[in-house]
Each structure stands twice: as C-alpha cells, then as structure tokens.
C-alpha cells in the first residue's frame, strides 16, 4: 500500500487544490454527530476496547500496510528520523490494550461500565447512589505539533468517551494522526465515521467559527499564546481543555548515582533526549546531578557526551533548519567562551556539525535547551537547589526523570509533587507515559466526562 492508495475518506485526504469552506466544516460536524448517535453512543465498552486493542495490535505488526506507510514516509512528512517514529509509535500502541484501557476507565471513572450505564462503586453503594459518565457530543481537537502520540492518545480518549471528534491539525502535521484515523476506519468503518480530520493554518476564523460552534468540548495543544488566543474565541459554555507549554528535566541523587551503572544511566538519559529530537514537552532540557560521589556530575556529563558520540552513527539526528542550527552554533560559542573564562562551565560537542552538545554548569538555574540534542548537566548540592534554580518554571514542568535510591524516592517524589511536578518516572522512560497518564496532572479521560448522579 502506498500513500495514494488510502481511500479519500477524511477531509485531509482531499487533494491540495480542494478548498475547505465553512459549509464543508459545519456539514462535517453535523455528519459526525449523526454518526455518533447511530454508531458510537450506545456501543458497549467491551466491544469498543476490543476494536481499539485490535487496531493497536495491527500497528505493532511490521507488515501492517498502514504502519509501513508511516515508516516509509514518516521522516519526510514529520521531520523525525524513522527510528523516532518507530519507537514512539511502538511504545504508544504497546500501551493500548483492552486491559490497559479497562484500567484507565477504572482509574478515571471508578467503574469499568461507567460509560455504558449507571453503576455504583463502593462509596456510591453505601450512599445509595449510582452514577453515569457521559462524554461530549463533539470534541474539536486543535493540535499543535508534529509529535503524533498526544494526538493519537486524544483520539483514543475521545472514542472511549463516545464522542464524535473533529481533529484540526496545524499545517503539515496531520500525517500520522491521519494514518491512525484510517486504521480505525479500515478496522471498523462505523467507528471511523465518527472521526473527521482536517488541516489548516490555525486562527482561520472562517473555518474555526463553525467548528467551535458545533463542538461542546475543545482540546488544544500549543504555545501559551496560541491557547490564550483560542480560549477567547470559544463560546462560554464550551468545555475547554488546554495543554500549554511544558518542559521537563531529570534529577539524579547522590545515592541513586551510587546504586546504578553510570554508563547505563548515560544511555538512558540520551534515550530521553533523542526521542522526538528533544522537541516534546517530555524531553529533558537539564539533568540535575547531586555532587559528592563518584562519578562526579561533570564526569557523568562526559559519559553522556560519549553516548551521544555513539548515537551519531546508530541513531543520527538528521538535518535541522538553518535557524535551529544557527541557534545551536551561537549557544555553543557562548558556552565555549564561558568555559574558557570560568572553571564552572564545560562543553562537549560533535565535530563539524551541530549534531549534539552537552554543557556542564555548576550554576543550578534551569536553562531551556534549544532542543535537537542540546543538553545541560548541572551540579547541585540537593534537590532544593535544583527546585530553586527552576522556580521560574513552576507549573510548567511536565515530567521529571528520577534516578534515586529506593529509600529516598518517595520523599523526593512528594517534594517534587508539592513543588508542581505532575509526572515522575525513571530516567529512560520519560517519553513513554502510560495511556492512563494524568496529562498535566489532570484525569485525561475523566476530564472529558460529565457525571449524572442517580439517587436511589
């Protein structure tokens, strides 16, 4: 199967010369709502999960034609190297099983049948109630980037909520979500009929007004400015679920470093950086390392640099834009001159390219990386130094990759949580959240639902 063999089913499949109009968008929304009433709203959880599990299984099969299209054209269409797409999608689809989706519903809604009919959990039985969770009629997803996983996850959550979904992708970002939509359609056309996917430049009032009028829930991913601007354009009663600018970092405690093999730790750190070229909200910008043990923080930085050298051949970064490369070149030069004039800074970098850069710094201030394998390693005395250094990012940190010994891990997580971190995971796993992950600290399925309490 090649790209052109996909059936013209979604708006995004139309040839480039076809122009979207407000009527096309509002008609599509009406069709979606009708199809939801007919094919989705009464579908039992069990059969829905079976279908979604089946779709995920297909994606994990290397011979699956739609997966092959993703792998063949993914690099060109998304800008990410093939191994990024492969690892990213495999990790995502391995997590979409009937069992995992059951756990997600149980976790977020307290009962696996909660969306099928009114049910009672323990507490409800004791208080003489049943309750029923109802999803939005039509969700409009406004996606912001080229990383496919959050978009595909949103689509799965929307289906679990029994909502019709219109996925509005930013220009040139629809490729992988589009293939996922086709895999749903191919597996179960009636389910596919409850999805629409289109692509236009964000902020187009003509097309977005009918969409936002028709949707009772809008999710959005993007920069804080995009999200702020979008919110002002929504009708007041519309449920709005924003996912704004987030960053991540890693933290290595002294005891954690003593307990692990530092070379393996360096590999895991690089795994987190390499996936999605360090451009996602789960990508670490900084690795904080506690001082006072062996290897020292700067020695760990050196090991990370050694690992980047190995990846140059096994997992090369690929080309980046002139602007991105220029930013790296300028930052490198600045840190070189700092390193030349201060013993607190060290820098390692690839030769004759901007492929990777590691900057070691004794100063704990959090520094946003310019991405594309540009990593800061910062030495600190204790967690409080790192959190103090990152205070400008409070509320903006998505994930902390943690390397700590067992006895101190819980206390560290408690401190991170109170500071505002919403996800902590082992280093090396930052890019692979569970499908049940509470994205930005909120219930991802639960947030879509509206509850009806039935007092018996």
């Amino acid at each position: 199967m090649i790209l052109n063999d996909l059936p013209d089913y979604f708006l995004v499949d139309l040839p480039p010369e076809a122009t979207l109009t407000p009527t096309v968008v509002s008609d599509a929304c009406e069709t979606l709502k009708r199809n939801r009433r007919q094919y989705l709203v009464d579908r039992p959880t069990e059969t829905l999960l079976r279908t979604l599990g089946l779709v995920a299984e297909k994606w994990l099969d290397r011979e699956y034609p739609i997966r092959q299209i993703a792998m063949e054209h993914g690099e060109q269409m998304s800008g990410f190297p093939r191994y990024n797409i492969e690892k990213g999608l495999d990790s995502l689809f391995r997590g979409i099983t009937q069992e995992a989706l059951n756990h997600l519903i149980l976790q977020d809604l307290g009962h696996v049948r909660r969306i099928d009919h009114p049910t009672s959990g323990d507490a409800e039985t004791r208080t003489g109630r049943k309750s029923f969770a109802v999803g939005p009629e039509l969700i409009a997803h406004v996606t912001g980037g080229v990383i496919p996983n959050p978009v595909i996850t949103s689509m799965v959550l929307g289906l679990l909520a029994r909502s019709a979904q219109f996925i509005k992708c930013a220009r040139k970002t629809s490729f992988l979500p589009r293939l996922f939509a086709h895999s749903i359609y191919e597996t179960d056309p009636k389910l596919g009929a409850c999805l629409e996917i289109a692509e236009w430049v964000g902020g187009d009032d003509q097309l977005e007004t009918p969409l936002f009028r028709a949707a009772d829930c809008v999710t959005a991913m993007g920069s804080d400015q995009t999200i702020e601007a979008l919110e002002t354009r929504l009708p007041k009663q519309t449920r709005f679920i924003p996912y704004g600018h987030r960053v991540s970092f890693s933290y290595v405690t002294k005891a954690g470093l003593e307990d692990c093999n530092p070379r393996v730790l360096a590999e895991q750190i690089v795994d987190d950086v390499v996936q999605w070229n360090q451009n996602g909200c789960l990508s670490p910008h900084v690795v904080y390392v506690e001082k006072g043990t062996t290897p020292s923080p700067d020695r760990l930085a050196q090991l990370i640099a050694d690992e980047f050298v190995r990846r140059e051949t096994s997992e090369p970064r690929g080309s980046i834009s002139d602007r991105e490369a220029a930013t790296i070149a300028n930052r490198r030069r600045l840190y070189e001159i700092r390193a030349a004039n201060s013993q607190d800074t060290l820098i390692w970098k690839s030769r004759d390219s901007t492929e990777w850069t590691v900057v070691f710094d004794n100063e704990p201030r959090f520094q946003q990386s310019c991405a594309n394998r540009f990593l800061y390693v910062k030495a600190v005395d204790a967690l409080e130094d790192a959190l103090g250094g990152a205070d400008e990012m409070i509320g903006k940190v998505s994930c902390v990759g943690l390397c700590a010994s067992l006895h101190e891990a819980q206390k560290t997580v408690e401190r991170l949580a109170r500071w505002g971190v919403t996800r902590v995971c082992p280093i090396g796993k930052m890019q692979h959240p569970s499908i049940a992950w509470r994205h930005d600290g909120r219930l991802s399925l639960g947030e879509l639902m509206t509850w009806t309490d039935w007092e018996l």
Partner: protein
Amino acid sequence: MEPLLRLNSFAEHLGSLIDSAADRSFADADISDECFEGLALELFRLQVAANPCYRRLIEYSQVDPILVASWREIPCVPTAAFKELDMTSLPEDSRPYVFRSSGTTQSNRGKHFHFDASLALYEKSLLAWFRHHVIRGLGNDSSLCIMTPSARSVPESSLVHMFDVVRRAGGFRSAEFYGDVSIDGGWGLPVERLVLALGEWCRAGVPVLLVGTAFNFVQLLDCLTERGERLVLPNGSRLLETGGYKGRTRELAKGDLYREICVALGVSSDQIVSEYGMSELSSQAYDHCIGTDLDASVPRRFRFTPWSRGLVVSPETGLEVGLGETGLIQVFDLANVWSVMAIQTEDLGVRHRDGIELLGRAELAEAKGCSLMPKL
C-alpha cells in the same frame, strides 16, 4: 611595545586608511583583500595579546594565532558574550564610555567599552560610510529629523550616538532629535510634533533626511493613518531605516514597511536606505547608496565598509557557505580595535556576490509543549 600601545598605533594607521579611502569616495580598491588580510591577522594577534577574555577563548579553542592564515579563520566571539564578559583590552579604569545593546535589564545588555581614541575611530568609521551611502548628493539646505531620543538622554546607545555624530558633523539647515524616553526607560516618539515639523518642511519645500528605527517609522505611519493624512516629502528627501522593533506592538515585514512608507510619505523605495549595525561593532553596512539605482526585483543586499567584512558561515561547519546559501552572519570589523574584531552575530543571511541579504534573527527554537512546528 605594550600590547595597548600597539593597538593604539594600529588604530592610527587604520584611521588614515579610512580617511584616504573616504577622500577617494571609495572609488578604487581602497583597501584591497590582501591589505585587509594583513591588517586583520595583525589585529587578531594584537587582540589575543591584549584582550584577556578573548585570549582565554583562543587558548581554550587550542588555536595557535601564528597558524591562523586567513581572516576567515579568526575565531569569532558571539554578541551574547558581551553581556557577561568584559570583551575589551582597556583596563578597568580606562573605560569612560560604554554602549549597551538593547535588552530589558542592565544584566542582559551587552557592553562595548570605549575611550576617547576608540570613540574617535568609531566616529570616523561611521561617518565615512554614512556620508557615502546617505548624504552624498544631498544639498546643505536639507533638514535632519532624527526619530530617536537625543544622545544626552540615551548616552549608552551606539545608534543614537551615530545619529548625533551625523548631526554634529553639520551640513544641514536644521537638525533635531524628535524622540524621548519614558519613565521606564522605553523609547517614545511624540509623533504629533514630528508630523507638524514634517508638514512645515513639506510646505517650505525643504528636503528632509528622516532617520530612525523600523519601529519609529511604524509609529509615524500609524499616526498619519489615524489622522487620515499623507505627506509628500519634498524632492531630494531621504530616509534611513535601521532594523529593530524590540518586541514593540506592531511589526511589519520590511517589504511591507517600505511600501507603506512610500505611500504615506510620498517617496520612492530607492530613497530609503537600510542600515545594519550593532553596538558590538564600530562599522555598519548599508543596502545601497541613495541616488544610485536599486534593483527592485532582488532582495536588498548589505555591504560592509572596506575595513570590515561580512561572512556568511554554515552553522553546522563554521565554514563560509556557497553563493545563494543561507548561514550565520559573522562580521570582521577592523575598527573594533580595542574590543574584538571577529564577531558572530545572531542573524541569518544569504551570501551573494554583491553583499549579504539579511534574513533576520535566528530566533531561539523554543519547545512549546508538544507543539514543535514543522519546517514550512
């Protein structure tokens, strides 16, 4: 001889070269490539000896100054380094003047230190190239209108200092600053007063040399639009625009800005010259000489002084890009005698045979949640 004394005598020699090139109106190969090469390598070695921060960079980079064979190989200092290090050969007690780059706080503004001799060389350098591109052929009955605050109110702005040097050099019927500084230090432009003055010069038929930042021009255009007015500047009028909005309200692409200026002020686009400069440099580049034909079908190209060179390098390899290719702009400015001659800017440009096409800042790539935008 002491390194500083050697820099002083280098500056004297360069000053006389600038004078003689300007006297000949840059007509012939005033500073040949060979001559530039020799001077650049000499200055590089002097600066390694005299400028401690730069010397440490050279040592750290394991570059042997003696083995550097071409000015293109001279290690550059990024403009950002001026923010945190004292990039100067001048002793701490001999830096009476400083130009600061734009920025919101003192700590994130670059510092370029000067003393009397460096200021004199800066003035000689800027005036020669400014006259050649902007003033040549302008009658001495014209009026200079400067849209920035005065040099007295913003003494640390190299741009304003430049305009002040032009003003003091004379040759105008009148010359005045029209901008002011607000309590928070921001630059303002009381546009009404400027519009009144321009209206008067128009009625009197006095050619105007109107200079300012791109943002100044936007302010002027907005005011004229609000008043529903258009001006037709008298024949022979000239405009100098220099980049920079500094995050102000309305930004316009350069082509759009020029089109709007032409309509609102009744000038043609070849009467507008664009300047490229920065506080870390002592020489500027211009995109054409007013009065010469400008090929409107191609993007404007900036040319540096004969005593400075712009180089477009690949950010990947650091080597000069091919013709028509994009890269980072480096400037090698011999008039930066007491600081650092080799500067790496944060701007992207396209290398052309006849100059550099400016593409603007290489913005820092910012990860925006999961919103990495594709390369369009």
